[in-house]
Structure formats: C-alpha cells, structure tokens
C-alpha cells in the first residue's frame, strides 16, 4: 500500500526532517508511527497527504509515485485518503452533519446519497443525535469523532491520523482508538502518528519508531 524509498525532506538550510527513509506498509495494515517530537512523524504524514513534496526519494502509495502527481492528480489522490488531525480541523460555522457531508458535496455526489451516507457514518461513530450541533457545542471526543466520520465518509483506502488523541483524556483516547481498530477491521489501511506509548501498547499493532527523521534501530527488512 505504502512504500518509501530513500525518502528525505529538508527544511530551510539543510535541516533534515526525514532522511533516507525506507518503509513499507501493507494494504490493510494498522501501523503506529511513534517517536519523540521532531522525529519526523508529522512530516511523513504530510508527505503521504501531499501537503508537502519530498526533497529526496520516492513515496509510492497504491502503486502511484506521489512525487510525480500533477496538481489535479493530487486532488484525485486525496479523495482516496481520509485524514484526522489533533486539532480536528472542523469548519466552525457548519453543523456536524454539514461538516461530514461537505466532503461528499465537494465531490459532486447527489444530495440524497450525501444524506444517506453522512447519516450512516455519523451513526457509526455514535453521533446521530448531534447532527445539527455546531462543533463548539461538542466535547473534544465528539469533535474528533466528527473528524473521523468525515475521514471515512467517502470510503477511503487509507486513513492517516496525526496525534488524533493528543487533545483527549485517556478514556476518550481509548474510545477513538477503538474506532480506528474498527476502521482497520473493515480492510482500510490505518497509519496513526502518536507518542502515547500506553495507547500503542493497548491497541497492540505494528509500531514504526522514528528518531531524527530516520527509522530507529535496524532498517526495515524487505517484505
């Protein structure tokens, strides 16, 4: 599903955020990216979401080299990827329902289909009773569930989450992680960046440890 070859990202005057990263994540895998602050976790996710382009090497997702995509191909690629951020990134002036259906609306899906699918996914995250609430009326956990619903609403093959529990208490964090486990159980590849070791232990999936922009320990063996 995801393969990086000699991936490097340099900021400013030669500051490496990622250096010669060779990593493979299989289709349907659940992978934690972990490491201290500045290890390169968020940079890797930004490169996978094409918010930035790599300075060196290649990122290949589902057989496509992301470094070579045109602007329009980038938009098409992003439609196949769901994303969840620590700060939720919800539109404050739109309701829960609108925040989620928005992802379908901009893709031009017929209104009736948008409604049906949005309701389904909001019900799945347990927010069917908060459809008309504004984000500011929700708790942190509820806001993150809205963000997860938005990430899933167009049925992506890959979900990327950057510190999705960073603003949540431990109980809510477990609740959110359970949702990610369920997403992964349906066959979606999930990559979660977190530095919460307890959470990683609790979920018990593959861990990719980054340090100074490189894989910590031995390089990944070819798969």
């Amino acid at each position, binding site marked *: 599903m995801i393969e990086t070859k000699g991936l490097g990202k340099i900021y400013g005057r030669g500051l490496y955020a990622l250096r010669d990263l060779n990593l493979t994540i299989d289709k349907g895998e659940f992978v934690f990216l972990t490491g201290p602050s500045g290890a390169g976790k968020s940079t890797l996710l930004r490169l996978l979401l094409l918010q930035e382009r790599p300075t060196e090497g290649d990122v290949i997702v589902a057989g496509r080299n992301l470094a070579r995509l045109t602007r329009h191909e980038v938009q098409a690629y992003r439609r196949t990827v769901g994303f969840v951020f620590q700060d939720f990134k919800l*539109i404050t002036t739109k309701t829960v329902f609108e925040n989620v259906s928005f992802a379908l609306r*901009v893709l031009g899906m017929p209104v009736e289909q948008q409604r049906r699918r949005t309701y389904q996914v909001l019900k799945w995250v347990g927010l069917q009773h908060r459809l008309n609430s504004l984000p500011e009326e929700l708790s942190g956990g509820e806001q993150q569930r809205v963000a997860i619903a938005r990430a899933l609403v167009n049925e992506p093959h890959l979900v990327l989450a950057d510190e999705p529990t960073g603003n949540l208490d431990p109980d809510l964090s477990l609740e959110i992680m359970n949702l990610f486990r369920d997403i992964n159980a349906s066959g979606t590849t999930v990559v979660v960046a977190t530095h919460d070791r307890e959470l990683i232990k609790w979920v018990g999936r593959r861990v990719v440890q980054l340090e100074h922009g490189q894989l910590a320990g031995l390089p990944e063996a070819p798969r």
Partner: protein
Amino acid sequence: MIGYAFEEAWASVRRAGRSAAVSVGTIAIAFVTLGGFLLVSVNVQRVLDRWLESAEVSVYLYDDLSDELRTALELHIRQQEAVAAVEYVSKDRALERFRADFPELLDVTASLGQNPFPAAFEIRLRTGATGDTAVDDLTAGLAGQDGVADVRYDRRWLTRLMGIVSTAQVAAAVIAGVLMLGAAFTVAAVVRLSLHARRDEVDIMQLVGAPFSYIRGPFIVEGLLLGGAGAALALAVIAGVYAAAARWLGPDLAGLAGAGPLQFLGFREGVFMILGGLGVGALAGTVASRSAK
C-alpha cells in the same frame, strides 16, 4: 457546483459587510464615470448625427446665368447619387428670406439699392451620404461647372467637431478604464479578505480533494456579484441624474441642440455596463482566488 458557489459567495458577501459595500461603491464610481460618458456620448452623437444629416450643399450661381444653363445644371445635380432633393432659391427669394430672418436689418438691405444675394441651388443630401466621399466628389464637381460662383458645404466644421468629440470619447474611455482597474483591485482585495477568513475551510476542501473549480468557484462568484452590484448601482445613479437633468434642463438642452428630448442609455449600453461589471468582478475574483490552490 454552481449553486454551491453562489450560496457560499452570497454568504461571504453578507459576512464581508462594510468592505463589500466599499467594493461595490468603488466599482459604482468607475461605472458612473463610464456610464456618464456613455450617456453624454449617446446624446452628443445624436445631435451631431442630426446636424450632419441636415447639412446642406449650397451652390451659388452667377447673376448672368441663363435659364437653359440653370435648368441643365439642376438636372445634372438631380442625377448625382448623393442628392436627395434640390431646391432652387432665386435672388428675390433669398432676399425675402434674409428680411424674414433678420427684420432688424431691413434698413441695410433697403439702402443697398440692389439685391446683393445670389440665386442658389440648395441640395439636401440623402441619408447616410453625409459621411461619404460621394459628397466631396459632388461639391468638387459642381465647383467646376459653368455658371457656378461658389459651392458651400457646412459639414466641414461638423467633421472637425466630431473629431474633437472622438478625442474626448477616447480620453473618457481611458479614464473609465483606469478607474475600473482601481475598482478591480478593490474587488480583488475584498475577495482576498474573504479567502483569508475562510482559510480553514479552503484548507479542508483541499485535503478532501475538492476540485479546484469547487474551491475557487465561490471566490470568483463573489467578485462577479460585487462587480455586477457595482454596475447596477451605477446604472441606478445615472438613471437618477438623467431623470433630474431631463426634468430641469431637458427642454433647454433639447432646444439648444435641436435634436429632441434627451435620451437615456439604450439597452445595448445598459447590457454593456452590467456585463462589464460582472466581467471586471469575475476577473478580479479569479485573480484573487489563485492563491486558493
């Protein structure tokens, strides 16, 4: 997608409030200038056209011209392509006209002892012929005829006047263009402000893979709405000024120009202004929205 763009653009214009009003006002000022120039231009052109159409060629004859030669000359004139009608004005008729037109100068004509006015042919030109070279050919041809003392065609000063008016039109168009450019920058600034206000929304749209037309559409439509509103406001202002001018100055101006009552902008000019406003606004919105990519 179009419905979405209009919906979002309208919401954005309402949110922008005062800055949107400033933007509409700036466009309106530019278009009032343009529309005012069009209004004056339309009416001046009408007057000039009327004067041009009524311009006559006067062919003055020698006193000793025989009747046969005069008849032959009249026949020759009637056969010319540019001629619509010919009237022979005898020496006596010319004197009568003078006396009728200038009764205060009756003493002068009486003291002369003899009639100083020459007989003449007054030629009315056919519609549309006044700008043709056929008229120049006609006057040149008549000037060389036997018995013709002089040929006068009062179009020349009109031609010069039309040249001045054309220059003024170009100058006004340049001024309106500069104002419109300024208005476009104002619209672009307002659209950029609303883009900034909706930065998070735009970022999210980009992350979910929304097509660029979906991301930029609302901002282009916002420019379109501001531009259209500015042009419509300008038309309303011009209509108001026109109504006042027609009411208070209309009869005097009409009498002075001899071209009937003042005329408002035609449908074509109105459409030109509205489309111009929409176009300038959309262009400014397009340029401003280029940063949303």
